[in-house]
């Protein structure tokens, strides 16, 4: 066999492997939510699926209750402000899920526009989402529709800003010198 042919064959195998590396969960997601899955990334077997905002609660509920590996635990729920990154949509809400059954993990991302920063609440899927969503609301100003009690978590109730937004100055807007007693 000539060297060139051999290389071609090897490349074909590598390509096939890349396609196959997406886990069963991701394939299931693509099957059930073909319109809602926007993007899929694999970084050293850490899988990230970007999902349409309107479908997020359905996707999370599917992952927890109906997928072949039930993601019973919500490890983390947080957000990213991509103001200074090369992204069309400013915010992203990120869900880190873990399956007790198979010890598998998956990351779900939802782009959230600045003009309408609202996402469905996952508190009805995992009660653990309650305080995590309050923290995201507090620090990023992203609202969670259907949340049982959406109040600030760490900042004072009358704090006027959302300090983890990238356009908020480090030293604040004078809140630390002028706050209610």
């Amino acid at each position: 066999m000539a060297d060139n042919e051999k290389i071609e064959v090897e490349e074909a195998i590598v390509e096939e492997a890349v396609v196959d590396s997406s886990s069963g969960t991701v394939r299931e997601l693509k099957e059930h939510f073909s319109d809602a899955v926007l993007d899929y990334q694999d970084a050293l077997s850490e899988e990230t699926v970007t999902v349409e905002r309107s479908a997020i609660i359905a996707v999370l509920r599917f992952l927890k209750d109906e997928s072949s590996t039930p993601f019973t635990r919500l490890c983390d729920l947080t957000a990213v402000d991509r103001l200074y990154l090369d992204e069309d949509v400013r915010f992203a809400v990120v869900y880190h899920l873990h399956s007790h059954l198979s010890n598998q993990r998956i990351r779900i991302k939802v782009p959230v526009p600045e003009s309408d920063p609202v996402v469905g609440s996952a508190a009805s899927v995992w009660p653990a989402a309650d305080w995590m969503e309050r923290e995201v609301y507090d620090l990023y100003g992203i609202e969670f529709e259907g949340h049982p009690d959406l109040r600030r978590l760490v900042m004072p109730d009358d704090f006027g800003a959302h300090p983890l937004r990238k356009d908020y100055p480090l030293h604040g807007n004078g809140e630390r010198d002028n706050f209610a007693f």
Partner: protein
Amino acid sequence: MGLEDQLSDHVMTTTVDQVVGWARKNSLWPMPFGTACCAIELMATLASRFDLARFGAEAIRFSPRQSDLMIVSGRVSIKMMPVLKKIYDQMPEPKWVISMGACASSGGVFNTYTLVQGVDQFIPVDVYIPGCPPRPENVIQALMKVQEKVAVSKAM
């Protein structure tokens, strides 16, 4: 000369201010407002190796109504400051305040939106301790400075 001549050797005269000041300075009851790592050093100061009891200030009280020396040891956020002020207001007069460490005194390295840049903006501070965190010896020295102040304060 004067009254002393009329009395025998085993009687001593003084003033009420001096007696009360002496009693107070040797029996300070600290209220620890510990919010960070400085509080760990404060605990070490109270424990056997440094033994704050030698200076009469070992009776730590978590009830402000039973204490007369507040030791602010740690960061104070703008959400915590109203709590600190309330506790300070609940302490009976006379009372003294030690601001322990860089954070309580000036905000320290935390020059951020949520941290009070020195508790002296809101309550009067008698002694500042520099350090991050200060060693127990520094705390003892600060306590002795407060004692000097207490000793010469008015009884009423």
